[in-house]
């Protein structure tokens, strides 16, 4: 039961057991189950409306499955949601950016709610995604791809053991996709786990340890 206290190291970082979820009359998650170890990447595929986003939102605890459970390090995440949340980073397909704040301000307020970040590290993350030149501009003047890059800068700053990414490469050019690949590779290299929902190919050099296909 309590693996951490007994000294045994749980093999899997994230585990889903028979997740069932209904939306109105639609049976969206029909017994989804998987295991994901440390340093592994799970790719969730499926056509539009197959429930990719719903699965990610269920995994991170925003939605409550009608049956089944999600385990992190062998524990039911519902037992202590705040602790689980501080160990994960969820990036939806819309970046949580405000049109009337600059890119840098957005990043500051977004990340700052989770952890205190010194300005120099903030700038470093912006430089990493190639945003230094325009990070003081209001987000309303940025292109869709540029907004996506600001979201990636957030990803670079979230040192969470678990990443849940929903279509992170949308709107990105080749260079932007390389940045995603590099960030994901680093996350895996330091033993983090990633669940990524996309029907595109994963950005190099990342390879999925498992692929989960959701049927519509």
């Amino acid at each position, binding site marked *: 039961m309590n693996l951490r206290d007994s000294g045994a190291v749980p093999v899997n970082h994230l585990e889903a057991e028979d997740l069932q979820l*209904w939306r*109105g*009359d639609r*049976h969206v998650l029909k017994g989804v189950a998987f295991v994901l170890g440390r340093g592994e990447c799970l790719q969730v595929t499926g056509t539009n409306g197959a429930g990719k986003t719903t699965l990610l939102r269920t995994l991170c605890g925003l939605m*409550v499955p*009608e049956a089944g459970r999600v385990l992190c390090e062998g524990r039911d995440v519902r037992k202590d949601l705040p602790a689980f949340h501080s160990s994960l980073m969820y990036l939806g397909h819309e970046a949580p950016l405000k049109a009337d704040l600059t890119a840098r301000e957005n990043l500051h307020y977004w990340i700052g709610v989770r952890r205190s970040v010194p300005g120099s590290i903030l700038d470093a993350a912006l430089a990493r995604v190639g945003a230094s030149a325009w990070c003081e501009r209001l987000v309303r003047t940025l292109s869709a791809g540029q907004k996506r890059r600001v979201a990636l800068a957030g990803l670079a700053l979230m040192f969470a053991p678990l990443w849940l990414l929903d279509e992170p490469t949308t709107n990105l050019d080749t260079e932007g996709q390389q940045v995603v690949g590099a960030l994901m590779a680093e996350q895996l290299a330091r033993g983090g786990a990633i669940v990524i929902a996309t029907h595109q190919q994963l950005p190099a050099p990342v390879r999925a340890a498992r692929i989960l296909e959701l049927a519509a």
Partner: protein
Amino acid sequence: MRWTWFHRLASPPYLYGLAARLTPWFAWPAALLILGGLYAGLVLAPPDYQQGEGFRIIYVHVPSAWMSLMVYVIMGVAAAVGLIWRMKVAHAVAASCAPIGASFTVAALVTGSLWGKPMWGTWWEWDPRLTSELILLFLYLGFMGLRAGFDDTQRADRAGALLAIVGLVNVPIIHYSVIWWNSLHQAPSVMRFGKPAMPPAMLTPLLVLLLGFTLFFAAVLLVRVRAEILQRERAARWIGETLRT
């Protein structure tokens, strides 16, 4: 161990079957009590020495008003149980309560107004009781409106439940603030009931009707709960089995 009855009630197929079996046991006594009570109230009870025959409205107004409040409390408690223990059947009970309670609130308002006309000379008086009743109607309408705004039953259940709990906390506050407000303006309070001076011949029909209305509510609630359970258990295997038998 003591909680086994509670867990059994929480199981939808069990409650569904129980509700179907219990309904007649509430419905028939309710019918008898209500008919008997109305007859006693209209014929047997003596006229009031002040209000004459006019006081007989008490026999429909007070039970309706009593139901409107009792149903709201039951709804709030069921909602809290549903929200805290994530219990589907409790949400089904809360959802079933709202239309019943709202209809009794309307009855209490209309009969109150019909009573007020001969007593006060106006169709509407800002009497604290009637005002509270009107606010209660808005609370019911808000609950039903919020539920109707969601197309997913589960979300409607949880959002509605939260509102019902907030409403339940607020009902006493609203009620006392209305009484406080009314005491400043000194409106004549004609509807003073429940005073111990009421003779037994007048009081008995009222008590009979209160019991009858309560049983009536239970019977209607059980029917509605079955409908709500069916709606929430779309995929469950037991439904198919129950329907076939």
